[in-house]
């Protein structure tokens, strides 16, 4: 491919970047502001220009002319006239609907032409959210700000939200000089905060597991200097955040609070779980703890592992559009397909970098992925053949021969820190009975979990059996081998998150083993699970269990 023009812009608005070109890095730096990275295998990376990616780019100050100039600069073929039209058209639409302050209770939505007002009035999904003032303006209740914007985006009406984000209560967050942020972490925070003007200060940062997303969050906190609420998927992650904040900033224990099932401690920087804020006594009750979002004087909210954001938090997030927001994730792949809602409520993807890039630069460990195939025992064959589809998967996933396979792998990596990760409790307990290694499941008390994780980190426990509670947000720096004995059907993000447990850079390479029963449903599910990682350039070697002597 041509060296100085590594980009191919297609009529369907996908863009393919030849990563072997010397100009690939420069090109990526210029297109990432208005296109989303779709996949990044080893040779050609795919980006997509969408309505949302364009509107987000324009909201943060880019113009259609500048976007086209960049495309013309890097594209090896002439741009299709439809692409040019699309970009200009979408850019022009931005500004048709402007949201500004009105009074304490209401915001003002102004449309560029009366005909747009008629369109809005005719939309069922907006009914009750907007009250006409005159032929070009509507009143909008403050609390509807996020929902309105999200719905209007779905209708193809981007809202130019000109209401500045609130400052929140100031809080000095000074970084310690004991660590040096990595260039991509700084770049990510710059992309999020921009120049501080309209259209900046909220968004999602996508970085690989083990690459230091927490640090990126801390850098953003230090730049903003406001009271911050951090939401995490579990208590272990809450503790990790607190540990990191104490280690990387000059915040004291008195300034950092834990709000979880165990403690209800509100401080200028508070770390809590999604579970605790969405708790309610029964399904008909209000989410009482949503007041936590409203009452803390927060100027900044961080959603850790934003791909796990539970549905009720979407609702409350819609209300919090006046606050700086940051979503952190490695895998913005939701099996429920709600990625768009994350983008519209928390904020657009501001930064994304291919895993292979960070691996090449040594910021995450080099990992080898192995799919280890083993047969189904003869006595299970008939049971498998007559079982229903879902049962088939479970029979294959719980193949008892996996115990022996795991034994061989553990022997091969003797002395290394090994995680055995599984989906089914019966299976995990079977492994524990066989091996005698400690186990962490949802039923394990937090204190016990933390103890075991600590022992594992300290190298006193070399093998740990874990259920899906350890899928994400658990920092185990020395783990270098993961043996996946079963998983949630074809979940791509689970596979990536599990690999993520062994990606902290260390002196030796990491190995990720998936045990798969050959000629069964598990093969297909395994391949689907691997999709995200193979699109990131990871290649699985397929091995027969017999090769592990």
């Amino acid at each position, binding site marked *: *491919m041509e060296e100085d023009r590594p980009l*191919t*812009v*297609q*009529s*369907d608005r*996908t863009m*393919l970047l*030849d990563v*072997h070109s010397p100009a690939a890095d420069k090109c990526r730096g210029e297109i990432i502001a208005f296109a989303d990275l779709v*996949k990044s*295998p*080893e*040779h*050609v990376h795919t980006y997509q220009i969408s309505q949302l990616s364009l509107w987000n780019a324009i909201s943060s100050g880019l113009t259609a002319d500048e976007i086209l100039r960049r495309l013309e600069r890097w594209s*090896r*073929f*002439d741009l*299709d*006239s439809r692409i040019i039209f699309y970009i200009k058209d979408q850019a022009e639409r931005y500004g048709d609907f402007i949201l500004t302050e009105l009074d304490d209770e209401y915001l003002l939505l102004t449309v560029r032409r009366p005909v747009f007002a008629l369109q809005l009035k005719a939309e069922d999904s907006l009914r009750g959210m907007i009250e006409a003032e005159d032929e070009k303006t509507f009143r909008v209740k403050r609390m509807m700000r996020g929902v309105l914007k999200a719905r209007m985006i779905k209708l193809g009406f981007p809202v130019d939200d000109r209401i500045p984000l609130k400052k929140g209560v100031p809080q000095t967050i000074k970084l310690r000089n004991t660590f040096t942020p990595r260039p991509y972490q700084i770049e990510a925070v710059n992309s999020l905060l921009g120049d501080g003007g309209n259209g900046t200060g909220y968004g999602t940062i996508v970085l690989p597991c083990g690459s230091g997303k927490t640090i990126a969050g801390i850098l953003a906190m230090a730049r903003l200097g406001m009271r911050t609420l951090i939401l995490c998927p579990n208590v272990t992650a809450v503790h990790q955040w607190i540990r990191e904040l104490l280690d990387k900033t000059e915040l004291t224990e008195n300034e950092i609070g834990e709000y979880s099932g165990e403690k209800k401690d509100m401080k200028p920087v508070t770390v809590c779980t999604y579970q605790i804020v969405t708790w309610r006594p029964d399904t008909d009750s209000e989410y009482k703890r949503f007041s936590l979002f409203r009452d803390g004087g927060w100027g900044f909210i961080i959603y850790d592992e934003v791909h796990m954001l539970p549905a009720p938090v979407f609702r409350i997030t819609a209300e919090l559009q006046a606050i700086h927001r940051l979503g952190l994730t490695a895998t913005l792949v939701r099996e429920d397909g709600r990625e768009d809602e994350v983008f519209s409520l928390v904020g657009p993807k501001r930064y994304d970098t291919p895993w292979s890039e960070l691996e090449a630069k040594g910021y995450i460990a080099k990992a080898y992925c192995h*799919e280890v*195939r083993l047969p189904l025992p003869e006595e299970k064959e008939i049971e498998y053949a007559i079982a229903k589809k879902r049962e088939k998967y479970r029979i294959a996933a719980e193949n008892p021969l996996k115990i022996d396979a795991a034994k061989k792998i553990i022997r091969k990596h003797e002395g290394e820190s090994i995680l055995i990760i599984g989906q089914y409790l019966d299976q995990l307990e079977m492994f524990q009975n066989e091996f005698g290694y400690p186990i962490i499941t949802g039923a394990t008390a937090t204190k016990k979990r933390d103890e075991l994780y600590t022992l594992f980190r300290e190298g006193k426990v070399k093998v740990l059996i874990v259920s899906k509670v350890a899928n994400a947000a658990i920092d185990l720096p020395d783990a270098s081998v993961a043996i996946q004995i079963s998983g949630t059907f074809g979940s791509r993000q689970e596979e990536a998150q599990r690999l993520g447990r062994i990606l902290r850079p260390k002196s030796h390479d990491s190995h990720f083993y998936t045990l798969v029963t*050959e*000629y069964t449903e598990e*093969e*297909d599910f395994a*391949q689907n699970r691997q*999709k995200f990682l*193979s*699109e990131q*350039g*990871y*290649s*699985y*070697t*397929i*091995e027969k269990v017999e090769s592990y002597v």
Partner: protein
Amino acid sequence: MSEKALPFDFGSTLEDRTEEVLGAVTEEEGMLLTEILLSYDGIYPSDNTAALTDRGLAFSGDDGKLHVGEKGMKAVSLFPLLGTKAKRRPYPEAFIPFLLSAVASSTLQSGRWQKMITSDFFTALFPGIEKERIAGAAVKAMDRLLKLGIADDSEGEIRLRRPEAESFMRLTEEERLALIIKEGCEHNREERERTALYIHLALLLSGISEDRIEKYLDLIASLSGTAVPEEDLFLFSILDENDGIISGREFPGKRDTLAVSSDFSITYTGTSPGEIYLYASPIITDSITEWKLTKSSLKAAFSLDMTPDDVRASLSELSSFPLPDTLYPRISGWFSSFSSLHADRVLLLTADERNARIIDALPTLRIHIIGKIGDNLFLMNTETEPLWRRALENAGFDMLGPTSGPHFEKTMADENKLPPRSFNPPEIREEREIAFSEEQAKMLSDSTADPLRKILILSGFIVAEAQPTPSIDMVNGLYYQEKLRLIHSAITEGKKLYAEFVDGSVLVGKAERTDEERISVNGHLIEIARIWRTAILPKGIKDLELHPSDNDSQ
């Protein structure tokens, strides 16, 4: 006429001053030379071509047709003959491989394929082309694939016939389109080549306004000696309209990098690799084409007798990078699943105990027995039924009745095998190697007052100042009889007449006798008596009219 017999010793001029001679070849002459080169049937010498033959740029071959000389080739170019070299959108060269892949993967069901192929399943693969257009093209192409025996719809499902598909893919794209667009082409090599040439030239058209496209298509029709309906040219994306400007779509260049990635995607620019449709599923084609290796695409490949080694060998040859480590084991795993169960169509032969013993012992039957499922039950090869029936008869089983049960008819491939490749697209540069220099010709012509020299300059026979005016037998008008003889010779030989008058004006052109005392030259009626000087000039000299005032104004 050979180059040796050129007038005015033009052979040496062409040899010594090639660049200047070619710089004097006008755009119209260049286009004529290009037509001579492209014409399927060839062009015979005529008055129009004399200027080219006289200057050694074209010559008559043994077949009596004109050929472009080696030097003349430098004035040959596609443009402006075929338009103005405007920007063109890419031709969807992956259309046929994508279609074949859909057939190979048994995605298209018998009786429902029209509906399936016009749905998003197929049309979304071509984001650069209108959905209706690609759907229409796919239906027409699929229909032809069935008629050509490349696809088979005879056993309740649509299948690909691999040998026929491979023959088809060995043809040039123009030949493939010719076979799809024009029925009967498979039996008529000449018509196939003509149609392929027509399509080739139509693809090269560029920047033609809508109101002039007919003229250009007529030109292409006259060059190729055939025509393709205009609607088919648009349907198959050979032609493309954009803001009232029509161009052929740009054929992809040579393939450069082909990458097989760890997510099993295959991406490349340029022409499609020959057999990729046998084992990969199409994803998209635009500026880049993308395929993907999937379980079902490999199942299709295995069904067409490909093995994991075949796929690996094919990809290794195509790929610009080492193949991902996972690829071969994954494909082998699928193959292992594929080959673990196999369905064969057989006939069941039931015998009594005694006959079963004999059949078991007969060496002539052994090769027809696929298996035995009991002492007296034989699974016989359906395809060799006539042979084993004869063998049984020869062994004394002459009372064997007809085979009972549903009849499975094995359809044989179309008797008319697909033709081998015979069309070679002409290779011509888009722009002339040496462009026509109008200004240079004008400057040279302005440098002389000698009308004869001026005429030879304007006709491209004198191309440099240093080149002397050749001597020509000029008859003084006072010698009336001699003048008459000369005029008579010019008329009978069909050569050009040079006629100079007392006032210094000059007429050059073909003369026609009107009556005893007058002739007509270039539509001017002139009295022979008034001609001051006259001469015979070669046919290749341009018709001209010079007046003394032409010089005065300079």
